[in-house]
């Protein structure tokens, strides 16, 4: 990616970012409940009308939309995402504390997913229409049809309740606590990704240069790992970037099941207690993380595909 293209990409990102911030702000601006009333209710106080009116004025909730949005955005840029009223702490502090556990979980399940799906996908492509391909296809088919939260619950039932091998609640954040949530996330994603690896490798396997290499007597293994696999990396990296999106959403469900102290779990409890600032902060942060990851994916093309470097 040339500097010019990178600049263009960053500009595009900035526009989308502004859009995201407007949308995030709109989420709570348009919410049917009165935030002040909900705030009092969340604290267990029944507010009277006068109190609500004073508080509304104080928080600037009577100002026009653009004024409110502008104020909110400048505060966000300064790193001030407001104060969570259900936990009585700044949103930034709360989010920062939960950020690393979620990233750790996402990373771990990503690695697991790659370890499972790349060999299986390649195997299934190489032995297309052989028994092993049928088995892999059947397993992945069932894998994409099973809800990940149910997988998580069944894993708890088997490993924690019946076999008593692992803790039921993964709140400690140690490696042992990470295993089941990561496996749960990896199972659902691996099924999808194995199919994509299979398709990508199959496509490469049917290209002319493979026929040519075979005709010249190049060994199958060398063709597969020296040519076919590197060539199929490009679509696979793109899909990896996309699957991060579903991963970031999926973690919230899995975090709730395992009581894992991550961002998703925090967001779900924020929603049940109408903690608008916390929800705003969460949505904004996660979408920024997602965008950054996709940018990294774009930049990585440079290193994977030499053609990208030549293109202006």
């Amino acid at each position, binding site marked *: 990616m040339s500097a010019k293209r990178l600049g263009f990409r960053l500009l595009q990102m900035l526009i*989308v970012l502004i859009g995201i911030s407007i949308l995030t702000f709109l989420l709570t601006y348009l919410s049917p409940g009165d935030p002040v009333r909900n705030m009092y209710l969340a604290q267990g106080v029944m507010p009277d009308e006068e109190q609500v009116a004073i508080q509304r004025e104080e928080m600037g909730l009577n100002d026009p939309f653009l004024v409110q949005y502008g104020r909110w955005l400048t505060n966000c840029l300064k790193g001030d995402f407001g104060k969570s009223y259900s936990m009585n702490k700044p949103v930034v502090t709360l989010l920062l504390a939960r950020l690393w556990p979620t990233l750790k979980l996402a990373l771990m399940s990503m690695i697991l997913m790659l370890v499972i799906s790349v060999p299986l996908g390649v195997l299934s492509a190489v032995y297309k229409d052989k028994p092993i391909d049928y088995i892999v296809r059947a397993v992945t088919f069932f894998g*994409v*049809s099973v809800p990940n939260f149910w997988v998580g619950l069944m894993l708890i039932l088997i490993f924690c309740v019946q076999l008593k091998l692992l803790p039921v609640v993964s709140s400690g954040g140690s490696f042992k606590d990470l295993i089941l949530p990561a496996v749960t996330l990896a199972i659902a994603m691996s099924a999808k990704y194995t199919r994509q690896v299979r398709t990508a490798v199959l496509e490469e396997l049917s290209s002319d240069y493979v026929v040519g290499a075979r005709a010249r007597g190049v060994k199958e293994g060398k063709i597969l790992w020296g040519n076919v696999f590197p060539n199929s990396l490009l679509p696979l990296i793109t899909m990896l970037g996309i699957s991060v999106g579903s991963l970031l*959403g999926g973690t*919230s469900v899995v975090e709730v099941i395992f009581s894992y102290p991550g961002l998703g779990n925090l*967001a779900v409890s924020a929603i049940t207690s109408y903690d608008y600032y916390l929800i705003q902060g969460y949505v904004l942060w996660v979408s920024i993380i997602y965008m950054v990851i996709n940018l990294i994916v774009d930049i990585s093309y440079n290193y994977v595909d030499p053609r990208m470097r030549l293109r202006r």
Partner: protein
Amino acid sequence: MKKKNILLRYPSFTIFAVLAVLVILVSVFAPVICGDRSPTAGNLAEAIEKPSAEHLFGTDKMGRDVFARVIYGSRASLSSTFILVAVIFVIGTVLGVVSGYFGGAVDAIIMRIADMMMAFPGLVLAIAVAGILGASTRNAIIAIAIVSWPKYARLARSLVMKIRHMDFVAAATVTGSKTPYMLLRYMLPNTITTLVITAATDIGGMMMELAALSFLGFGAQPPTPEWGSMLNEGRNFMQSAPWMMIFPGLAIFVTVVIFNMLGDGLRDILDPRTE
């Protein structure tokens, strides 16, 4: 030798179409199947009983029959999934076709909005929307629809753009075809097959997303029987009553498998290009 009967030519599609119809019939005739076992009225004296001849899937904490709840639960899951898929199909197709046909400012506005929606990780925004609008089946449908329509809009747009500048379109315009006629007669038919395939293959996934939202408590509210929320209730009784979460989960799984296979089968029939 080519078999004339389309049902015999695609056995996999036929089998799963029959199964899908069966699932729908089960939800329609739930009262007949369950007889006097009510999905909502429980007998506390019979709470948390193991599966038996009388209670095939056991009972839950309120003494309600889990079998009846699973059977009745198909109503909520199926109807909300079909409504959701229909909503995103219509919104996505209309916006995509309009965007691709008119181009210019209309296209730019619709597509930038779509870009922004796609910049959010799907379920994250859906959870936030569902949570802020309040927990109900309707709001869960709205939440997922908001994040899912751009996929259809982009697809429809790209299909329209492909034929937009073909000669027959120009000919139709020159001979005085009005815009609504152009859209309905030429643009829509060209997109519909691909979009129907996409919608059919999406049914299973959408069902799981709705179940995930209900599982988190942002979808159907108790005492309505719904598979996702049943799993959530069953979670607390994992040790004493595992059947409370095994059967609703199996129900989701089986239904999603059937609709995924049906979608794949439909794709094979309508789109012979894929293997």
